């Protein structure tokens, strides 16, 4: 099944979906979004590409395997609990640093975001792993 329309769409949609998934991931702490839904979008970006070009070509276009991505996500989620230990709080306590402060805008980064990044990678990796093995044949 080779469709030119789908291929052109997929080629252009993939970067957009990836950027969008990052936006959703970042805003997730206080607004709708988060690691899970962002991960689904990231996975969807590659699955769309695989539907247009086939699994093997998609896997060649990305330099990592979905399994590694899942493991990396798990590792990051695990590590996000560690910074709390240095300040003597229980494991998984949220720790925040303020990067930029102004009267109007304020930019904060914290371990919950790191945890979300872990979820993001795990979900996307798992989704790709499952879909690629179903689509392969």
């Amino acid at each position: 099944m080779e469709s030119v329309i789908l291929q052109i769409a997929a080629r252009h949609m993939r970067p957009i979906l990836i950027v969008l998934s990052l936006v959703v991931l970042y805003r997730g702490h206080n607004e709708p979004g988060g690691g899970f839904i962002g991960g689904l979008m990231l996975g969807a970006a590659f699955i769309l590409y695989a539907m247009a070009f086939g699994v093997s070509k998609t896997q060649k276009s990305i330099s990592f395997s979905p399994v590694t991505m899942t493991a990396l996500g798990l590792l990051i989620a695990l590590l996000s609990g560690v910074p709390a230990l240095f300040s003597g709080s229980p494991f998984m306590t949220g720790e925040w640093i303020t990067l930029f402060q102004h009267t109007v805008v304020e930019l904060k980064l914290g371990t919950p975001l790191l945890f979300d990044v872990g979820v993001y990678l795990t979900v996307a990796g798992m989704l790709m792993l499952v879909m690629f093995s179903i689509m392969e044949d």
Partner: protein
Amino acid sequence: MILVLPIMLPLLFMVALIFTRRWLAFQQVFSLIASFALTFLSALLLAEVSRKGIMTLQLGGWPAPYGITLVVDLLSAIMLTTTSFVALVVMIYSPGFIDKERQTAGYYPLVFGLLMGVNGAFITGDIFNMYVWYEVMLTSSFVLIALGGSAEQLRGSVKYVTISFVASIFFVSAIGIMYGQAGTLNMADLAYKMRSWEEMPYMNSALMLFFIAFSIKAALFPFFFWLPASYHTPPVAITALFAGTLTKVGIYTMMRFYSLFVVEDVMFWKIFLLVIAGLTMTVGVLMAASQFDIRKILSFHIISQVGYMVMGLVIFTPQAVAAAIYFTVHNMLSKTGTFLAGGLVYQRSGSYDLKYLGGLYKSMPFLALLFFVPAMSLAGIPPLPGFFGKLFLVKGGFAAGDYLITGVAIAVGLFTLFSMVKIWNEAYWKSEPENMPAPSRVSNLTLAASSLLVLAVILLGVFVGPVMKITHEAAVQLTDPLIYIQAVLGKQ
């Protein structure tokens, strides 16, 4: 801090093993070291808890009824230690037994995924969190049971997956009802509210749903049928791991729930569970008697033995509960031991079927010994731990005046002896059948693993005094739930 390690270390090990999935030799050595580290850690935790009393940790700094609490009391610590020891033995056993394809297909990471779930279920203090750990454990076990994908395995795993889903549905429905009634899922908080509130309707319905969910996992009568239909299909090392850890999580949860949540209608629950326990023991042992596959006989015995644990639990005197905990530990070791010995037989003779086996005592007396010890322990022959476990259970039963169930327990013991002697006679004692294939070599690692476990079984029998002292303390904590509630909530 030490309290998160039983969950976090397996996760870390699993991730490390996924990254190194191409290097089999590394995976074998690493999992060995990792499971040794886990065993060491759990033993440390056990020592710590028996010195200081119940330990708690409020994850993320959220105080008790709002956040997730990790709680380790003596029962949890005992279960953690036994589980990780069983896992250690299986990790020694696996490289020499499981074929290369399965080993490289993710066997090692999955085992640690399973351990993470099992450990999580042992130490969590929150019902929903426990559900999540159950799922972690089950997901790993689904893949492990189907790993390799032979036709027989897939048949078994379909049954296993389906019934597990059904159990999960019951589990979640019960959680929903409880949350709707009490507004909390923290186990200590819930137990506290059930004791202090005048009225809490539908609690018995929720408990009944919980009972169904856990009795499916623990393979109690009448929900045991999935176990003999699926447990014999994967390589026996995986079955041994399941027998030693998975079904016992169901029992652990039942102990915890019975101690915390059975507040109303205690008499009903006691009689109901005693009847279930008696039927579980009897049906399991009778069905085992009619089997000829070693793995099937042993699978049916898992069921029968679970009945003893429930019996000790519901008599609910410190003496009986202590005996039940001791019995659980003994069972985890001995059961795994018999499965591993069955695997050795298979490695040697290429079959699990008693009709095609024989003469193993003459050709390999040491291998026979490795089966004989845990099997006789299961049958309850002194001075092995199974004898002491049953003795204390029977003593506890008589002391509490529950004569009928105690009588059943003694009778079932005789039948267990019959099955074990049957395996012994057929596989080891009788002369070699004529068309038996040439014996193949048994790997040294599997022999070493089996020997280690047999040694542990013997030691458990030798040091019955000190071990019973610890389980007795655990039972005291369990029979007085206020200790647990106070440790978590920090109030009266």
